[in-house]
């Protein structure tokens, strides 16, 4: 009963990540790749993303501190960051990346700075939510267990 309740909570948590716009269809694609041979694929990819993206954000932050801004370089950094964010289905993060790139193209320093702060916030928020989700999912156990007949 406890496990059933936990699984329901996991399902609701997962659903809210989509309805609140944190994740998009790509996350579902990653879930489709999870199988017996790769039972933790999604969490592994998310972990890799947060490891790599932290360094990327540092690089971008350092580039933003330099004056004058090299908008081409900033755009290139953000292009890559947007790509990896897209790969895990991080929708809000990806949207802020796109906005940042628009400001780069316009040479808008203030816009870049402002959007970067929003991007970091979305990145951190998603990280917390995914960590909580994966932790609860691990505690609830695999879905196959849930569907096992009594």
């Amino acid at each position, binding site marked *: 009963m406890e496990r059933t309740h936990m699984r329901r909570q996991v399902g609701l948590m997962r659903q809210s990540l989509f309805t609140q716009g944190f994740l998009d269809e790509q996350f579902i694609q*990653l879930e489709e790749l999870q199988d017996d041979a790769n039972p933790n694929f999604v969490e592994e990819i998310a972990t890799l993303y947060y490891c790599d993206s932290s360094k990327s954000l540092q690089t971008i932050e350092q580039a933003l501190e330099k004056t004058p801004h090299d908008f081409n370089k900033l755009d290139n950094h953000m292009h890559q960051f*947007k790509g990896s964010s897209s790969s895990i289905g991080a929708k809000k993060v990806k949207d802020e990346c796109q906005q940042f790139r628009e400001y780069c193209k316009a040479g808008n320093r203030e816009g870049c700075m402002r959007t970067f702060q929003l991007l970091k916030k979305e990145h951190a928020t998603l990280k917390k939510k995914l960590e909580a989700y994966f932790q609860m999912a691990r505690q609830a156990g695999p879905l196959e267990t849930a569907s096992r007949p009594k």
Partner: protein
Amino acid sequence: MQANHVQTNFPGLKVIVMDDDGVSRSVTKGLLVHLGCDVTTVSSSDEFLQVISQEHKVVFMDVCMPGIDGYELAARIHEKFTKRHERPVLVALTGNINKMTKESCMRVGMDGVILKPVSVDKMRSVLSELLEHRVLFEAM
């Protein structure tokens, strides 16, 4: 393409994935492994040139790479494999498909270009199309 012509699995198909972004590379690899492929991943053109062989049938390459980019690499692959049947099928992976990107890919002799991230169904139909026709340039 009709659904009944789409191959559903590609056991042992040797594929190289080249992408300097670790997350994109891992996701593409996971996708191809899920479809049965034997996948080698590389993060640079230099690494790619060391591993490529006639055994590899398909290459998925990110075109925006530091150093030697995907476009230049495609040209080098054509120089290396002068006979078409020995050369792997070359597919550009890009975050932005527009007319210019498509024309650039065609100009350097790539066999196709697809938008990443790629879904399971899309990759399945891409591989099926490539193995049957050795080309994939969809109408834009």
